[in-house]
């Protein structure tokens, strides 16, 4: 059937798709850091001395992208793409396992980083008004991190338990 042959990719393709999906968490990080960066510029435009403080907050939504990168690397190592010996043979279902395992860190990463960017922007404004409350602003933004970490954990556990 036509529709079946359309999806008649190899297992290796699905594995790479998984790695790509994990790396997409970077989209969220970029948006999140962008939002926080705009807010940071707003604060610095009035008080350039706050640069150091707001920079810490701006960087917080960046972690999701790093988690995505980490999972993508693990997948690439697992399928032998980074070993130098060429990709190992994997079945379609093994490839699909990897794709499924990568999805938590990719999807949760995108949305949590955007949400974290907003929380970080609010924290940056908090620092603008009350510079001594930097730590509290960081905690509020860092709370969002929990869910990115949970997704990373699940993705990691799943990939680790897939055997070829």
């Amino acid at each position: 059937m036509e529709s079946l042959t359309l999806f008649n990719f190899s297992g290796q393709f699905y594995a790479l798709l998984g790695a790509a999906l994990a790396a997409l968490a970077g989209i969220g990080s970029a948006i999140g850091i962008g939002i926080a960066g705009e807010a940071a510029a707003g604060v610095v435009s009035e008080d350039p001395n706050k640069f150091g403080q707001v920079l810490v907050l701006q960087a917080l939504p960046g972690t999701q992208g790093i988690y995505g990168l980490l999972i993508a690397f693990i997948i690439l190592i697992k399928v032998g793409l980074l070993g130098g010996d060429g990709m190992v043979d994997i079945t379609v279902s093994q490839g699909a396992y990897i794709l499924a395992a990568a999805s938590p860190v990719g999807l949760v990463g995108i949305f949590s980083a955007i949400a974290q960017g907003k929380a970080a922007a609010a924290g940056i404004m908090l620092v603008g008004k009350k510079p001594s409350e930097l730590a509290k602003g960081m905690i509020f933004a860092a709370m969002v991190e929990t869910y990115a970490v949970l997704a990373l954990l699940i993705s990691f556990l799943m990939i680790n338990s897939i055997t070829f």
Partner: protein
Amino acid sequence: MGREKIYPFAVARIRMLENSLLTEKTYTQLIESKSAMEVFKILSDAGYGGESSIDVKNYEKALSNRLAKAYSDVKELVPKEHFPDVFLLKNDYQNLKVLVKSDISSINGENYLVGGTTIDIKDMKEAFETKNYGCLTENMAQAITESYEQYAKSQSGQAIDNVMDNAAFKDMLKVAKESGIKFVENYVKSLCDITNLKSYNRIKNMKKTFSDFESVFVHGGTVSLDTFKKAFNADGASGGFKETAYNDLALKMDEGFTVFEKSCDDYLMAFMRDAKYKSLTVEPLLAFIYAVETEVKTVRIIVNGKLNGIDTEVIKERLRDAYV
């Protein structure tokens, strides 16, 4: 996920500018100062008047500069948006009133023209003199023609004010609707209702008739003329608003004129204070303009009170709630 537009830079900058707003503590200092000179000194220290120090001669200028700066700060932050105009339009219409009235009375009203407008005063004057209303809004052009007609009929300056006020609210509502921002729309509607409630209270106090109220009623609010009519005919001034959102506010009418006028401003300030908990959307920008407007109003009350040797307690009663 919200579909509202977000303005992280603008809001963050406004939050920083909010640091320059006078605080409750400064107000207390101002009220308790012994003389107007002391008031001017505190204001200078708080950044009013920029480089030059403030005195009796230039304090009005310093106050209007403060307002103009707030308007332009917000406008600069959101150059593509028109919603700050809901605050500026009233100044446009104030100028139109001045122009029409000075034309009719042939008294030069130059001193009564105010800044902080959507249309440059020079352009407006030129449009007015050449009768070429291209740069004005449709409602403004209509209001000019209509105010002359109404004046010809009634020979009263009040008629001009009524026409202009109604047109002002029409324009404000239009801007608010076009912005698509609920907060702006609700603000204009509340402002409309509050304006009507104030006129209602004044007319009731002056023991005038309902038709007098009808002539100053501005359209666009949530409280209908019908509700006012029922309230007007009921016993007591304040009882007829139970089914509206303004019942608590209306009850203040019984506590006297000054208390009610202050409560009206405080009601709008309470509305604006919601913006304190918005971190990315547009509300804080509007609230900032309102906060500065209120600040200037409050400072003016204090300065005038001190200049005229009015008792500290009396001034205190009239103070508006501050934003911060």
